[in-house]
């Protein structure tokens, strides 16, 4: 199958998946989402007012009408305005993605580089005291809540030692990267490094036990070449898969990090939208994220072939 045929088939397969996501978010919102009219009505309201707000929002329409509007919104990429702030949903998403990516892209790069580097190193010295110590540290690190890292990290590095600002955000990407983002990035990497390291170590170890590694060594290749040219290249496929799964998460970021460091990102926005039953924002975020996830999965599948020419499109 050619690449274009493969892409076309995958895109067609994505449509029912997207419809399923839309149906799920629609059912969930109407089932457990809460009626936004009661929040928007203010301190003192009455049934007539609630009915008027429901009519204005369109939540008094039959479900099939509401779902049809949802489909039209997805097709036109126009989700209207936020119910709680009247801001255009497209403006909300565009303005929130930047801060989230400012933190999450460095996190992904640093975490991947460090995790792969340490994974190869500890896998190479498998069973040694260093390996055991690193693995034990990872287990301990994984058993501590992210919240604890944030609270302690913010107090220690932000307040007590004064190395970083406690919180804040600027309009300038440079200021953010140099001044405000380092502590959130450091804490997130600290949390995400341990599980990734353990996982990548197992990928590397798995490859090290294969016959081709023994053959490479028997042929007299240096350990450096064996590990980096052969083992790491083959371990890259599961690592890539793992990164592919993690990529959509970049766009929603970490709610906790964004809330504690006052970063105006998408994760914080989504949680606040859920709290305020702001369905237009919830709908848009879910749909865009679903599309993004499917696109990234497709990209990862295409990259498999680039990493391993034996892989064929089926």
């Amino acid at each position, binding site marked *: 199958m050619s690449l274009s045929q493969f892409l076309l088939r995958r895109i067609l397969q994505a449509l029912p998946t997207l419809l399923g996501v839309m149906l799920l978010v629609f059912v969930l919102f109407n089932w457990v989402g809460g009626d936004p009219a009661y*929040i928007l009505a203010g301190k003192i309201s009455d049934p007539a007012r609630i009915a008027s707000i429901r009519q204005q929002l369109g939540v008094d329409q039959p479900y099939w009408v509401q779902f049809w509007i949802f489909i039209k919104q997805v097709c036109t990429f126009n989700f209207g305005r936020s119910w709680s702030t009247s801001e255009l949903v497209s403006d909300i998403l565009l303005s929130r993605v930047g801060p989230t990516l400012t933190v999450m892209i460095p996190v992904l790069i640093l975490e991947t580089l460090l995790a792969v580097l340490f994974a190869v190193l500890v896998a190479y010295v498998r069973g040694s005291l260093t390996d055991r110590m690193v693995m034990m540290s990872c287990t301990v690190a994984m058993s501590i809540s992210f919240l604890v890292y944030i609270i302690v990290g913010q107090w220690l590095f932000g307040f007590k030692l004064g190395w970083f600002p406690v919180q804040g955000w600027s309009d300038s990407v440079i200021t953010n990267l140099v001044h405000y983002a380092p502590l959130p990035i450091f804490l997130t990497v600290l949390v995400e490094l341990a599980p990734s390291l353990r996982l990548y170590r197992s990928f590397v170890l798995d490859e090290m036990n294969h016959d081709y590694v023994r053959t490479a060594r028997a042929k007299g290749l240096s350990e450096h070449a064996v590990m980096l040219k052969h083992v790491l290249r083959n371990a890259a496929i599961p690592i890539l898969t793992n990164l592919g799964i993690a990529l959509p998460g970049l766009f929603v970021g970490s709610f906790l990090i964004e809330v504690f460091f006052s970063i105006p990102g998408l994760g914080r926005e989504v949680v606040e939208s859920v709290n305020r039953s702001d369905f237009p924002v919830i709908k848009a975020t879910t749909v865009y994220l679903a599309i993004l996830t499917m696109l990234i999965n497709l990209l990862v599948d295409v990259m498999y072939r680039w990493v391993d020419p034996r892989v064929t499109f089926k």
Partner: protein
Amino acid sequence: MLLSATCWLAADSAFAQDAQPLKVLRTTLRTAETGFDPQRINDLYSTDIAWQIFEPVLDYDYLARPVKLVPGVAQAVPLAEQDGRVYTFHITPGIYFADDPAFKGKKRELVARDLEYALKRLLDPSLNAPYSWLVENRIVGLDAFVAAAKRTGKYDYDVPVAGLQLLDRYTLKISLTKPDYNFLYIFAMPQTAPVAREVIEAYADDTMAHPVGTGPFRLTEWVRKSKIVLERNPNYRGAKLDTRYADLHNEWDREVIASIGGKRLPILDRIEIYPIEEEQPRFLSFMNNQTDIHDETSPVYMNQVAPNNVLAPSLVKRGIRAFREVEPELTYDEFNMEDPIVGGYDTQHVALRRAMVLGHRRDQEVQIIRNNRAMVAESPIPPGVVGYDPTYTARDQDYDAQRAKALLDMFGYVDRDGDGYREQPDGSPLTINYLLPTGMQYTKLAALWVKSMNAIGIRLTVSQEQFADLLRDQQVGKFMLTGAAWIADYPDAQNFLQLLYGPYTGSSNRARFKLPAYDLAYQQSLTMPDSPERNALYREMSRLVLAYAPWRLGVHRSYTHLVHHWVHGYDRHPIAHTRFLYLDVDIDARQAVQGR
């Protein structure tokens, strides 16, 4: 060329020496704002920001306690005419809105029509204004005007309303459907602040992001839920502190007079406000000198800030000052008076509610859950509002388990099947459900209720719901017992007592309390100005609340606000909260500390 460059540098350097550094104040919000259109705002924190940008026609004196109404953009506080049925507002000529493209380059003067427009706008069906209740069913002809507009589908602001009479460019006469001596208070709320129609029409759906007022500051930057920047409004006419009502025994009042008395206000050039929902970063950014004011310190940090209610020496050493106040607000638990088990006005059901009130460990709520940062409520009227009586006590709301048990026994609520829990007098099960929002604080309050009721043999279950669902269930009366709180919109007891007024059932009266004697007293109180006679009616209404127990009165929460020593003029107002108009910042003192 070198010479000219040298001259330019010298001139620039001289200018830099002469130029005053900008006075910038940095503070935080506990909850993210939603926008600043006065007629559309719903939440407390957005209201506080809007108050810096817009000017209601009336205002509160900065220092007067109890609070006192003074003119805002009106020339004077109107007198009640025709026994409280008519109020005439004279707008001060020569007040201008902040410049905005909507004015097409012209200066725009504030006129009476802007106030009329704002009042009509509160009832615009397309707006669904959260504070429409301020004018609903009060102004002659306004509700009929709205009803007609709903029928025709066109809300025409140019159609005159009988009760909103423009006498001239600066005068608006408002006629009410019935006497109301508390009516003026709503004109000190940002929700009724005059707005320019051309601005509202120019920005249409986006008015929340384009506030254009006549107030001391204007919005110059807004990164939603992250940063709000206000800068001095060049068109603001300026103000001076009125010291007539100051309490010279009060150290905060003395400091305000010493620091800003006689100066032209505002002094601040710029205010940066950061919404930070989490308590730790909000507190630490203040302690780190990243922010200048820390409003409403969380009880979590109170042992650090003021162990044994005395400001910690480490903070005293840093010159941090703590402003403490009991806010005009009330927490309470309300019984559903229409519920067949806990509701009703007969002695048996009254006895059940009163027993539950007596059995509830409110003392532990104050000591343990609220860390002693609250004052038990003796009546539905909190301190700081007109009608509050500090001598009024309610022993029937104090914890007394023996009395509670005796009352239950007397009215037949006894344990018939020996399971440790009482049944109803007819032998049917007695299980009471307590409805609350989700959240740690509410879980603690619920646990205390369960423990308290277990101790007197009443089975209490708990339901915690999302906020939207909770509001719905409370409004339609789908609960037995539920928690609530009310923060004063204006400083009169009526704002609290209306919560139990019978005709407001299904609206603000969520307990669905309908007692003719109470309703009559409430109606009479509306027709009376502040007087001993009206206070007697308020007292009678409080007595009826205690006697019939539709509410278990909770507490009036107390708050501690922290300010650094370089902030001057701080004196938090019970209703208007922090007023940037009156604040000053000693930039040199702040820089000296930050440079250390």
